């Protein structure tokens, strides 16, 4: 960690004015401090946003839920409104990190957590995400945890969040503010694919602050499942995860949402895969067709081909659990 200056503004305007390329906001600190200890992040100034009034969870005029950027992950997962109205979100959050980390980690910080690619974390080796133009050792290196979908020549990293996979399936919006004022970003457009700018994980500008995440009015309170597959039973990042949310009309599916985690640079959704299920029976054969469509074009690397099969099975199982509407 290199020395830095520290300040703690109490108003959003003030915090935004302090922002700049040499500065970082700090919320829970669980990702930023980790990266600073590894010299991957080297801000000269930290702007502690914990005194900003961004801790509320409130119902919106349209019956949705607005979650302040500083609401801790554990409080959100256990918020009565979230448990009752967005159980998929609750389940996904609780599948991530550890209880201690979830007590510190915030809603905004979770969205902006960076990849767990080993090469990104090791400041002694090249990495296009950390040092644009320096190269990507993961492509030919040890790439068991890396992307099978949507990667580019320059970067094969994945986005590690569990919460974001549920937010993608629930079609949340991210509300941000900056010098140019407030804007709302649909969740699908918030994170990006690496392309030729792998240093950019998302579309947030350096001087923009996340104010809140807004969930639309609740759906999928009966038929949902978050399935996370990892190297140990708990306290590990996903190799593959699936957020599945269905609406059923008798034994037929009327709406389907499926988002995958651990397979791409952002939560992975495929409209065609979801459309395939509409009006269909909730059976294995149809789930398998959706899984095929979700994974079409997968380009596994040397060590992560297992993810294609793992994801295929996981999608079928998650859809089955969701369709069953089991008490979860």
């Amino acid at each position, binding site marked *: 960690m290199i020395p830095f200056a520290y300040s703690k503004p109490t108003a959003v305007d003030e915090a935004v004015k302090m922002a700049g390329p040499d500065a970082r906001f700090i919320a829970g600190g669980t990702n930023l401090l980790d990266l600073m200890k590894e010299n991957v992040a080297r801000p000269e100034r930290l702007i502690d946003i914990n005194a900003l009034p961004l801790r509320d969870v409130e119902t919106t005029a349209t019956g949705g839920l607005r979650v302040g950027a500083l609401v801790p992950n554990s409080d959100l997962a*256990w918020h009565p409104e979230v448990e009752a109205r967005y159980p998929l979100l609750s389940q996904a959050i609780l599948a991530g990190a*550890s209880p201690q980390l979830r007590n510190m980690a915030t809603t905004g910080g979770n969205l902006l957590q960076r990849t767990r690619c080993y090469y990104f974390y090791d400041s002694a080796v090249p990495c296009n995400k950390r040092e644009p133009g320096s190269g990507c050792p993961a492509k030919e290196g040890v790439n068991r945890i890396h992307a099978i979908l949507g990667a580019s020549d320059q970067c094969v990293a994945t986005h590690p969040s569990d919460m974001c996979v549920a937010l993608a399936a629930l079609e949340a919006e991210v509300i941000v503010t900056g010098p140019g004022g407030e804007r709302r970003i649909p969740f699908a457009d918030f994170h990006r694919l690496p392309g030729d700018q792998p240093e950019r994980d998302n579309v947030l500008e350096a001087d923009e602050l996340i104010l809140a995440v807004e969930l639309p009015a609740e759906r999928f309170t009966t038929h949902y499942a978050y399935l996370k597959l990892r190297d140990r*039973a708990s306290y590990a990042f996903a190799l593959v995860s699936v957020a599945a949310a269905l609406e059923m009309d008798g034994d037929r599916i009327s709406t389907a949402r499926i988002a995958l985690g651990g397979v791409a640079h952002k939560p992975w959704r495929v409209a065609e895969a979801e459309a395939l299920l509409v009006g269909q029976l909730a059976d294995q054969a149809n789930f398998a067709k959706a899984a095929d469509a979700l994974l079409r074009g997968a380009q596994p690397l040397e060590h992560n081909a297992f993810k294609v099969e793992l994801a295929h099975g996981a999608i079928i199982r998650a859809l089955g659990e969701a369709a069953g509407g089991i008490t979860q």
Partner: protein
Amino acid sequence: MNAITPPPGGNSHAVHLISLSINGKKHELEVRPWTTLLDLLRENLQMTGTKKGCDHGQCGACTVLVDGRRINSCLTLAVMHDGAELTTIEGLASEDALHPMQAAFVKHDAFQCGYCTPGQICSAVGLANEGRAHSSAEIREMMSGNLCRCGAYNNIHDAVQEALPVCRGEGTA
């Protein structure tokens, strides 16, 4: 890994004055912005009960309670906790009696080398404060943020299971 290059001078890296209650005792402390809560405890205050295992949020050895909530003290800055009430392993016992969670760890022999134990106990007290974990599987899941390299997990589980209801004020199991 944690060696900090001294600041190049100038007051942009000023020392910050914070007030922190630690185990019920008020402290007025001067801290550098980059001092983690863990390093403040261990290095500045010589309170070495809280352990440093990984320094990256991956083991739970550094677990402390801030305003009753369990957190990893290695991934937070001391300066961020001005005004907070901190409880560490040193603050759990009363003058003449162990905390029920400590007593249960002794009774169940819930350790071997003991390095993870302060974190395990603080984490379990935090779990009790959360009012969750009513089954064995839930206890295992909700204690998964604390690794034990000696693998004393079965006894740790038994200790936590026995003491949780007592800590929650629900009487004995």
